Structure formats: structure tokens, C-alpha cells
């Protein structure tokens, strides 16, 4: 029952199939573009709200990948995007830092760590809570295994190190902002 192949019908069928499929996908892309952007923006905003104290205005700096949050005239903090390489791939964080240089909170934007081990960086309360109010001028920013003051996630030192490094990068960005 297979149709015999000749140049005309092969070109015709394959061409028409491709044309039709591209049209369908083009349509689907246009239809889903807005919801996809909205979902991404919502996620971003949720992360920012989580890592900063109450603010009224947000200003994005595309060069430094950070958000400057203000409440009235006063700057309440900076939400800085920072990413490093974890155990399974890129680990990207949103770190909130108040103007006095203290970490307000941090949140994971995306990661590909091992489920049950490194992936706990998004659920392990003990690990996550230590970033709340972490003052780098009082505490040493590296995991306890390396002589610092960050308690690593059990059996996930590499992820914890990467997380710590990402926070350190965010603090560097913050220092650069302050010296501008």
C-alpha cells in the first residue's frame, strides 16, 4: 500500500508537510508568546519580592543584571542575579542585599543539581535560613569545610560551595555598585 516514490510527489509531500507544520508552529508561537513572557516575569518578581524588604519601585540595570529597589526616596536594597556552576550545571540565584552590605535573603532561580542531594538547596530550611541576614563583614563567606561560616547541605558540599560562590559574586557586584 506504500505510495511509489518519484521526485514530484516526494518534493510535494515533504514540502507541503513542512509548510503546514511551520505555519502551525508559527501560530502557536504567537499565541503562547505573551503567557510565556508573563510566566517568566512573574517568577522573576516573586524571586525579587522574596529576597528584598518591602519596596515600592524597582529599577532594572541591564548591564549589571541587578534590580535597584526603592521605597519613596530611600534605597531599600538591590536584588542581584548571580550564577555559578554547581554539581549538575548552572546554578543561578537571586540575592537581595540591603544598602549596609548585609544579605537580606536569597532564592534559587534555576538549578540542575541532583534530586535528593544538591537540589535540597531549594528546600533545606537550615541551609536557606542561614542566608537571611548574613553579614559578610562578621561571618566568613565559605563553607565550614573550607574554614568559613556557611553550613553546607549534608553530602552536597559542591552545591553548597557553588551557592556560596554565587552569593560572593553578588556581593562583589554590590560593592561595585557602591563604588560607582
Amino acid at each position: 500500500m506504500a505510495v511509489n516514490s518519484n521526485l514530484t510527489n516526494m518534493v510535494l509531500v515533504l514540502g507541503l508537510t513542512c509548510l503546514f507544520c511551520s505555519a502551525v508552529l508559527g501560530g502557536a508561537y504567537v499565541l503562547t508568546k505573551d503567557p510565556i513572557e508573563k510566566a517568566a516575569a512573574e517568577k522573576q518578581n516573586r524571586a525579587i519580592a522574596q529576597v528584598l524588604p518591602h519596596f515600592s519601585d524597582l529599577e532594572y540595570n541591564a548591564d549589571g543584571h541587578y534590580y535597584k529597589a526603592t521605597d519613596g526616596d530611600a534605597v531599600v536594597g538591590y536584588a542581584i542575579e548571580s550564577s555559578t556552576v554547581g554539581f549538575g550545571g548552572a546554578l543561578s540565584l537571586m540575592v537581595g542585599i540591603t544598602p549596609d552590605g548585609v544579605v537580606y535573603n536569597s532564592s534559587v532561580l534555576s538549578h540542575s543539581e541532583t534530586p535528593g542531594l544538591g537540589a535540597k538547596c531549594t528546600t533545606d530550611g537550615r541551609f536557606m535560613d542561614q542566608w537571611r541576614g548574613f553579614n559578610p563583614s562578621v561571618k566568613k563567606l565559605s563553607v565550614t569545610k573550607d574554614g568559613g561560616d556557611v553550613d553546607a547541605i549534608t553530602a552536597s558540599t559542591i552545591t553548597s560551595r557553588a551557592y556560596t560562590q554565587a552569593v560572593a559574586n553578588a556581593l562583589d557586584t554590590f560593592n561595585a555598585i557602591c563604588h560607582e
Partner: protein
Amino acid sequence: MSKLRLIGDGLVKNNPTFVLLLGMCPTLATTTSAINGMSMGLATLFVLVLSNMAISALAPVVPDKVHIPVYIVVIATFVTLLQLLMQAFTPAMYETLGLFIPLIVVNCIVLGRAEAFANKHGVLESACDGLGVGLGFTCSLTVLGLVREILGSGSAFGWNFIGGGDGMLAFVMAPGAFLCLGYLMVLFNKLFKKN
């Protein structure tokens, strides 16, 4: 052949995971928890039913020499469609499965059913076959995910029953996937393979 029988065959006799051993890559990789396994299964089910229907409708006019490229284009279209929809409406799930969604295109189950069934049967029968095999895949992945989640994280469908602490972590990782799959396959064949 009755439609119901086709669905039943996909679940048991042609079970893609435990009998046909197709699509092992997403099977092993995404079944770290029952929910993940089930989502991957449902995503594949969606593609399988639609691509089976489209291919069975197209088959009579597709010249033999270009049938594989045409099938792949059709399958890839449905997968991309699914990817866009998931990204838009279930972003959390898209993040967990993101990497494996595009891989459904080259999942042997989908192309396998197109070649072995859809291009020789009618649209409705092909839809039933897709539904059956898709459900078989979903059930297998859910069971495998559930077993791994219970052993590896001490929880079921995200509900933790050991009250904190860790499960046997090896089961969440790759070695546990192979172990669980092997034993489940033995169990499945013991239960269903009578002749």
C-alpha cells in the same frame, strides 16, 4: 480488532517500558519522583495520540522514500507545540522536565508506533493504540517514579512519611533507576507473561 483491546494491549502486552523496552532514556532520567514520572508519561501520551492520528491520516499519500522525514516533521511539530504550551501554562513542570521534552521527538516509542501501527491502520484505531501505549508508558513511569521516591526520599507523590531525614539516596540517582527498573521488569513479566 476492538478499540478497547488496543488500549489494553498498550498497557500490558505492548507495555513500552516493561515489555518493548523502548524510550529508556526519559524513563531512567525523569523518574526521580512519582509526579515527575507521571508528567513525563502524560507529555509523551499527548504526543503519541496526536502523532499517531496525524500519521495514520497522512500515510496513504506519503511516498515511501520520504516517509521517515515526514513522520519526524509531524512528531517534532507536536512536541514543539507541547513545549510551548507547557512553558506558557505549567512553567514549574516545564522547569523539571524541560530538557526531556524536546527529546520526545526521538523517543523510539513515538516513531515506533508510527512505523509499526499508525501507517497501516485507521485514524481512530491509531488514536486508541496511541492512548493505550501512552497510558502504559505513563503507568510504568509513575510506578517506577513512586518506587524510587519511596525508597530514595521517603515520600510518595511529594507527601513525606518518614518525617524529615533522608531516604536511600542511591535510588534517586542513576544506579537506583537501573535497579528499580530491573526488578519491576521481573515482577511485571512474572505477573503478566503467562505464555
